[in-house]
């Protein structure tokens, strides 16, 4: 058991600052220094990585998470079932549908209900929109890490297309609270699928431009290729997840291995790369955006063919007052029926998982029959990927840290929960 690093020893006044705050170093021995990176470091986000360096080679790394821990599991125990949805999406607000979907599914498993087919398609629609937006967000952050400011501007601009679409569909740019028990909160507005198809065409064109300026750029490739290699067996042993896992040659995607919603009815591929380096992880995400666009096309076609179908399970819908039904017919909006406020979920335990942009998120939900969950255990994708820094960073140079950190697409609020 190694000693806990308790920060900076001694009192440091403003005038005797020798280094910039957020980047402290401490000499441990001859040529061995301890460097604190973060949590205010612009590169690491709300997370600190403590590394020990020999020269500029990292010999030990200690990812220190928890700076944005919001006690999701404890808070969830004290709130009614429906309040879990707006709470848990705070983990990754730009990936809100993917992050809350398994919670909704787990509760539906306990209730023994299944949403209507159109609701399932609408969920998949928002999940894929979220996924693309989250990947573009990750690209932008990664771009700025490796000093490629165009790759910061472009994806953030293009992400706006998807955020606006989500806004139009749900009424909120982020934190949509879209899937609810037994269905979704709103139907797709008139003309939505046409704009969606336009966005798909635009994104395909842009991905080709990303390739030219960024992924195939010799300067970027020199920094990414063969850096931060995660071999296949190590990826499995560490239990990492998402694009990082598939970039290491493991064929695993929840949408494919344990299909939920309507993913087993859709036609798409799971891209897998064998290299396992930072470049492969970027390519992985580019290829996954292409597959998401392909899924969205099919969903748009389906939604056009099945207009006006029910989007809420009968069990809840039949409790809705006539005014609610009128609002739905006129605006396509489902007002939250009052029965949710007092919802009691039958005793039992359920496990549900979904593939978010950063990987698999899993919810273990246990109910004792009350109006609040007894226990909700959430393990998000970033929480499982954080282990990579401990085992992969040693042996790399300090300048490779931003490359590896960015290519893992670690998102501290999601990791800390």
């Amino acid at each position, binding site marked *: 058991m190694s000693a806990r690093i308790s920060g900076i020893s001694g009192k440091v006044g403003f005038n005797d600052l020798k280094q910039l705050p957020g980047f402290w170093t401490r000499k441990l021995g001859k040529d061995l220094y301890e460097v604190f990176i973060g949590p205010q470091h612009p590169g690491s986000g709300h997370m600190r990585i403590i590394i020990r360096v020999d020269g500029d080679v990292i010999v030990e790394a200690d990812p220190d998470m928890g700076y944005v821990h919001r006690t999701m*599991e404890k808070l969830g125990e004290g709130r009614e079932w429906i309040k879990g949805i707006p709470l848990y999406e705070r983990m990754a607000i730009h990936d809100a549908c993917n992050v809350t979907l398994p919670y909704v599914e787990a509760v539906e*498993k306990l209730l023994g209900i299944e949403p209507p087919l159109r609701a399932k398609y609408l969920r998949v629609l928002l999940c894929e929109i979220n996924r693309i937006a989250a990947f573009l967000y990750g690209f932008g952050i990664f771009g700025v890490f490796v000093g490629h400011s165009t790759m910061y501007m472009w994806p953030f601009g293009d992400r706006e297309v998807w955020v606006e679409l989500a806004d139009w569909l749900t009424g909120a740019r982020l934190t949509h609270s879209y899937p609810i028990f037994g269905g979704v909160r709103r139907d797709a507005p008139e003309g939505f699928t046409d704009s969606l198809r336009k966005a798909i065409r635009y994104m395909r064109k842009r991905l080709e431009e990303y390739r030219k300026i960024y992924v195939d750029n010799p300067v970027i490739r020199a920094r990414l290729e063969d850096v931060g290699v995660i071999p296949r067996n190590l990826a*499995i*042993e560490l239990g990492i997840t998402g694009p990082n896992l598939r970039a290491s040659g493991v064929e695993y995607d929840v949408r494919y291995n344990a299909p939920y919603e309507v993913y087993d009815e859709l036609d798409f591929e799971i891209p897998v790369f064998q290299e396992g380096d930072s470049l492969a992880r970027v390519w992985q995400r580019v290829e996954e955006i292409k597959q998401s666009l392909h899924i969205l096309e099919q969903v748009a076609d389906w939604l056009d063919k099945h207009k006006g179908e029910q989007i809420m399970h009968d069990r809840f819908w039949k409790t809705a007052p006539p005014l609610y039904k009128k609002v739905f017919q006129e605006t396509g909006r489902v007002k939250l029926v009052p029965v949710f406020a007092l919802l009691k979920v039958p005793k039992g*335990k359920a496990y549900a998982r979904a593939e978010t942009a950063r990987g698999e998120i899993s919810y273990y939900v246990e109910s004792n029959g009350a109006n609040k969950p007894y*226990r909700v255990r959430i393990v998000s994708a970033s929480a499982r990927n954080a282990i990579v820094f401990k085992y992969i960073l040693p042996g790399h140079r300090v300048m490779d840290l931003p490359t590896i950190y960015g290519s893992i697409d670690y998102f501290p609020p999601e990791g800390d*929960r």
Partner: protein
Amino acid sequence: MSIDELADMVRNLLAEYVVNVEVGKDLVHVEVKEENVIEAAKRMKEAGFDHVKDVTAIDYPKEGIIKIIYHLSSYSKKELSRYVVGLGYSIPRDKNSVPSLYGVWTSADFQEREVYEGFGIVFEGHPDLRPLLLAPTVAELKPLRKDFIVKEEPIFKK
């Protein structure tokens, strides 16, 4: 492979260690005894359950027990990856040390640290057991146990 076949497979695999098997929707829960958990884990890993999806504990103050559960699945075997198997055991609430399964699954590393900080359960044999998300002073309060009650402050003070 259907979920019942998986349950039978796990039952045969762990044979003498099994205390109870529960089959839920997409989830098989296997209860073993604490002293057998390392052996059971090794058998599970050999059978292809190569990673831990989560490690969790649940506090039952009325029964006076805490259940510790490792949710397992497989990356390398497709037929196993469809479902999740929960390998669990119960300990009395006042017992605070259990064997670590870090030696079997490296992926349990951070997860056991999380259970340690939330419930104050010490995983013997874990090489680096310290709080992961919480400050040490908060972790001492064992905040995820049921007897830790979050006091909500009123918006307007009387």
